[in-house]
């Protein structure tokens, strides 16, 4: 059921939030053992929160635009008093003493958190197989991955365990699982949504965003979570753009570019490339002009990303030292305790990224790797800027392939990294992007088409996304 429809009937007193949540909890009971979308199901907490929403309605109060909407929260979003693990042994059992701003906002809008969802450990991965607590499976085809790192939230929405979900996207971690699981995923403009209480991976890239069953629910969710937060110094100090009022404005007169470096990237499955072309035709039919455009440095996005993101991660993850929270493995002195704790607590991919980032930042290599990647980041921003002189929005695949089988890419880290080739360039620019489901491939697996827009171009992005959604086969 759409979030919009749930909130409408709950606010009108036509349906109890408590009945809605029971329906979703029943779906969780039925398939969660098979799919493992959650690290932690909040059944009792959800029942209590739904009762609070119903009591507000009974009093004549408005619980808000997400009244009674069951929501899945990625387990790297801090929830006060509720375990928040990042799917890592190093944080197993930790109960944060505060909640993320986005969690406060969705709850204040009446949403009912139903569980904390599985992810690749510390959001590092593209399949949710890097979780210390076991992989999540794709609801559409359980021997396949749901994508990652927000695979648990994508699977929860796709399986009907929640009406909507929240994820985080550093290099594609909302959009790619949305594409592989057949749901809508939005990475907002960097700074539009507060990162306060999002456990940091790469701070210049991380953004929180919604995963939903429809473009219109995504607009509703983004309106609730967007906006300035004094607790995040990188939060944009201006009012967030209204989205739902623009949603049905259409694309007549818009100029849309297909990004050659994304559409023609190595390894793009023919079905996926065809879906992008078909989506472009649908936009033309509605009055947009579509042309191909080159964003040359985007071809270097993945290389630059795999220097910048690990470098930032190696610094951010220095805080897991066995002193203030989480796991400790004792040693004769503090340095040994730190090192043993970190070796025991982090999984292989997290160690790989910490090592890669530390190497890229170390004396003698800093300028050649991290410094060069930062200069390439400037070129990518410039090239996108040039493209947006001629285009209102850009188009490409979200993921080069549809959902792959569990285990298919776990032995070769580079092959897993290539899953991000189409999502990373715009992340480096800090721009917004959406993944919209658009048909299926020959194996009946969902395909996602990606809509890119310039910074704070969410209104145009949603208009384009809505037309693509309406034309989807």
């Amino acid at each position, binding site marked *: 059921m759409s979030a919009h429809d749930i909130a409408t009937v709950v606010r009108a007193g036509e349906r109890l939030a408590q009945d809605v949540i029971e329906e979703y909890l029943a779906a969780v009971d039925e398939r969660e053992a098979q799919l493992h979308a959650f690290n932690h199901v909040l059944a009792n907490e959800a029942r209590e929160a739904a009762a609070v929403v119903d009591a507000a309605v009974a009093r004549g109060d408005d619980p808000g635009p997400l009244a009674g909407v069951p929501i899945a929260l990625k387990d790297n979003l801090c929830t006060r008093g509720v375990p928040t693990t990042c799917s890592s042994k190093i944080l197993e059992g*930790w109960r944060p*003493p505060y909640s993320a701003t986005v969690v406060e906002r969705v709850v204040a809008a009446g949403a009912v958190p139903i569980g904390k969802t599985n992810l690749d450990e510390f959001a590092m991965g593209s399949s949710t197989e890097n979780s210390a607590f076991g992989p999540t499976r794709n609801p559409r085809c359980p021997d396949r991955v749901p994508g990652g790192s927000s695979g648990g939230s994508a699977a929860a929405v796709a399986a009907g365990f929640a009406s909507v979900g929240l994820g985080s996207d550093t290099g594609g971690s909302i959009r790619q699982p949305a594409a592989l699981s057949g749901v809508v995923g939005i990475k907002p403009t*960097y*700074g539009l949504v507060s990162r306060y209480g999002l456990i940091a991976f790469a701070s*210049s890239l991380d953004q929180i965003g919604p995963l939903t069953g429809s473009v219109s629910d995504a607009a509703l969710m983004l309106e609730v979570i967007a906006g300035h937060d004094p607790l995040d*110094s*990188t939060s944009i100090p201006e009012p967030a753009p209204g989205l739902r009022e623009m949603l049905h404005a259409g694309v007549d007169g818009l100029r849309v570019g297909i990004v050659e470096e994304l559409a023609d990237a190595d390894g793009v499955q023919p079905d996926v490339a065809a879906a992008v072309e078909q989506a472009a035709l649908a936009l033309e039919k509605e009055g947009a002009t579509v042309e191909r455009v080159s964003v040359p*440095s985007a071809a*270097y996005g993945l*290389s*630059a990303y*795999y*220097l910048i993101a690990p470098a930032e991660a190696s610094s951010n993850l*220095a805080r897991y*030292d*066995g*002193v*203030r*929270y*989480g*796991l*400790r493995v*004792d*040693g*004769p*002195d*503090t*340095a*040994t*305790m*730190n*090192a043993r704790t*970190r*070796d025991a607590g982090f999984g*292989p991919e997290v*160690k*790989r990224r910490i*090592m*890669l980032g*530390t*190497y*890229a930042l*170390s004396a003698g*290599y800093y300028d*050649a*790797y991290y*410094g*060069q*990647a*930062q*200069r*390439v*980041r*400037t*070129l990518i*921003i410039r090239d996108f800027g040039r493209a947006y002189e001629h285009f209102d929005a850009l188009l490409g695949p979200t993921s080069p392939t549809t959902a792959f089988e569990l285990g298919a890419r776990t032995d070769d*880290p*580079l092959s897993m*990294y290539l899953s991000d080739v189409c999502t990373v360039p715009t992340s480096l620019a800090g721009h917004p992007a959406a993944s919209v489901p658009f048909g299926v491939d020959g194996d009946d697996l969902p395909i996602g088409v990606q809509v890119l827009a310039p*910074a704070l171009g969410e209104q145009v992005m949603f208009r384009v996304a809505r037309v693509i959604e309406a034309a989807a086969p």
Partner: protein
Amino acid sequence: MPGGRARISRSDVEHVAALARLALTDEEVEQLTGELGAIVDYAAEVSALDTADVPPTAHPLPLVNVFRPDDPRPGLDRDEVLAEAPATEDGQFRVPRILGEAL
């Protein structure tokens, strides 16, 4: 390295692990030596672009320092925070001996 293939040796990995405070096992060092070499070779493709006059971007937003009024307000509850720590004593985090300190 610019213009050439990166080579990562076992001792590079051991050095970086020490910097990153990771007590890697021998098997992990062995595996990471190969994996990091391959990843760094791939990432080194960035050196193909001419960036002679290009400034670096550390952040997508033009960041300015953000100030707030200096009004006192409550922080996190100390007992609640300490309850999550592996070891505490007298309202403080407790850690093993710090190397080199005469205690």
